[in-house]
């Protein structure tokens, strides 16, 4: 504290410790991976270096006497509507370091949240609602290209050749998080949970560790601009292949895994030397047009004998509808659109907070455009980026998505408290770290249970919501925007979402 640089000494959180309740058990000391808590043997006292605290709450949740509270630093700048606290602190930080500010997780700025401005319809008197506890309710979802028409022979069997499909028990999948950005225990938790739930998880761009090949039937393998870990064996290991063009948290730039996180296992899986930064190029250098994308899609289909659907993941940007139309015409089976609230393991803060558009409007625009062009059935649409609960998912499906990707929520089920320090590789909850001491903190046994609980709970809530709308299958909700109404939105916003004002 003595040798501090006063310009860089503004910090966000204070560890408040009620010393009357502190038993010096040192749980907080051992659990803090950022060096904020210390035990002083001479004074028999635990104290905190508040400027190291990131507000992850690991210490306060582990304290057996609940003597710790993490509070916002009351040390406040003069209130200024233009220069908010974070503007000032970021500026000082950059004046001190000359660097780009890197951060983790999704956009945390108070942009309009359209999920919260949409309400769901329900049946009353004239159309009966359905009770999902007493009547069957179908959440089964198929992702992939659907045929223009179905031909059935006299025996009642389908004779049309169907494109490969992903079959989901519920319209939720675990989104791409690379091995390396998250550690093996987290990857294993997600993979096992996907298998148990009958859904899919996505490897992200870091390849598939050898030990997780057994979860291949529930795996979507990703092929990103860095081509980390991509081999014929890898492409054939999964149930589908995803070409990652963009990510909602950082549209237009490539992934970056800091060298500190590239340890033995990650190096082997990514096929890069230990300790080297894994920097994905911003564009795919072989894709500069829809025609180029088509080449890659068909190269991947060729490599997997046309047995696996190919997905293309893009970030939600201004012209997303036209881009999606191009992707559909390039031969993709699935389009995943990632909104600007989607998370990341590391992204420049300026980009995370200012680039891209909300997933709500992106999904509405893409679905509308594909319908207008008569090619909606040729692709499935997966929405991603900041889904917080089952009602967000119901609204996304009503806006036109076939399924959703969740990742931040999945990590939260494993303990994440959104402290946004993923890029530092010191995650106190053991999620975004490869440190053998810290990564032990996620026990897949517990992780799988919690992920399965979360998806089961959300699926049950989705069934309840379908029931109250009088719908008994998720298929009937898709693109059913008539079941949504806007509250507190302008006419142009309602138009962008393609929904009516409440009361109309």
């Amino acid at each position, binding site marked *: 504290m003595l040798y501090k640089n006063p310009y860089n000494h503004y910090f966000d959180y204070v560890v408040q410790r009620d010393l009357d309740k502190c*038993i010096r*058990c040192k749980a907080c000391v*051992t659990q803090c991976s950022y060096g904020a808590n210390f035990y002083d043997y001479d004074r028999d006292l635990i104290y905190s270096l508040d400027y190291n605290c990131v507000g992850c709450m690991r210490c306060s949740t582990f304290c*057996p*006497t609940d003597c710790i509270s993490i509070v916002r630093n009351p040390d406040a700048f003069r209130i200024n509507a233009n220069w908010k606290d974070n503007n000032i602190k970021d500026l000082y930080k950059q004046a001190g370091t000359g660097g780009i500010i890197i951060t983790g997780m999704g956009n945390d700025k108070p942009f309009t949240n359209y999920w919260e401005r949409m309400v769901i319809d329900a049946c009353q008197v004239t159309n009966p609602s359905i009770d999902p506890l007493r009547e069957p309710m179908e959440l089964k979802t198929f992702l992939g290209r659907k045929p223009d028409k179905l031909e059935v022979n006299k025996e009642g069997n389908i004779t049309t050749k169907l494109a490969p499909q992903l079959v989901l028990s519920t319209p939720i999948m675990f989104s791409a998080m690379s091995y390396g950005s998250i550690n093996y225990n987290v990857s294993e938790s997600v993979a096992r949970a996907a298998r148990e739930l009958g859904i899919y998880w996505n490897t992200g761009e870091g390849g598939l560790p050898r030990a997780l090949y057994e979860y291949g039937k529930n795996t979507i393998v990703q092929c990103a601009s860095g081509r980390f870990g991509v081999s014929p064996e890898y492409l054939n290991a999964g149930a589908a292949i995803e070409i990652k063009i963009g990510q909602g948290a950082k549209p237009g730039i490539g992934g970056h895994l800091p060298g500190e996180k590239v340890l033995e296992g990650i190096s082997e899986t990514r096929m890069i030397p230990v300790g080297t930064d894994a920097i994905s190029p911003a564009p795919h250098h072989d894709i500069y047009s829809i025609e180029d994308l088509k080449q890659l899609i068909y190269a991947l289909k060729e490599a997997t004998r046309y047995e696996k659907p190919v997905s293309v993941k893009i970030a939600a940007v201004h012209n997303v509808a036209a881009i999606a139309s191009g992707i559909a015409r390039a031969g993709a089976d699935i389009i995943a659109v990632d909104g600007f609230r989607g998370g990341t393991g590391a992204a420049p803060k300026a980009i995370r907070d200012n680039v891209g558009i909300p997933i709500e409007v992106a999904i509405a625009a893409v679905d509308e455009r594909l319908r207008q062009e008569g090619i909606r059935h040729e692709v499935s649409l997966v929405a991603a980026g900041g889904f917080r609960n089952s009602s967000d998912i119901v609204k996304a499906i009503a806006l036109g998505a076939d399924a959703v990707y969740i990742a931040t929520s999945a990590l939260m089920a494993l303990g994440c408290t959104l402290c946004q320090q993923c890029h530092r590789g010191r995650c106190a909850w053991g999620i975004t770290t490869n440190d053998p*001491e810290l990564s*032990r903190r996620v*026990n897949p046994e517990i992780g799988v249970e919690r992920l399965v609980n979360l998806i089961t709970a959300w699926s049950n809530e989705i069934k309840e919501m379908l029931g109250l709308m009088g719908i008994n299958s998720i298929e009937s909700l898709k693109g059913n925007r008539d079941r949504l109404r806007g509250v507190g939105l302008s006419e142009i916003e309602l138009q962008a979402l393609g929904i009516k004002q409440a009361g109309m």
Partner: protein
Amino acid sequence: MKVVYPREQWCVACNLCEVACMTEHSKAKDPLKTYLLEKPRPVSRTRVEYKQPRALSLMCRHCAEAECVQACKNGTLTRNEKTGTIELNQDKCLGCWMCIMACPYGVITQVIRDERPVANKCDLCPERDVPACVAVCPNRALVFEDRG
């Protein structure tokens, strides 16, 4: 026989097993009073050993061939023939520390009782269904199992 097994790969070295053990074996049964008021303070019967990145919480193994029972000269340490566990009768203990010398795991400690030091070790929390350390472990790094 069910005993507590540490699972080294999941121990996060949070020390909560020690807090729970001390609280369970205190008069007050409350962590605050146990640590701050009780004199002498109870001594934990399990200890988190760590040299990161490795850590584990270790307590009496209730060995099939217990060195401590063989070393004990006045029957303080005995095997309960019914349950198979090793029991320690602190009233009898003379404080010769032969058990501490003999224990290959180093899990027998000393505690002050009735103003004299006596041996102290895991009793598997006879008043609980699951030992306190196992119940408190946030990462299932301690399990209470019968592995034959």
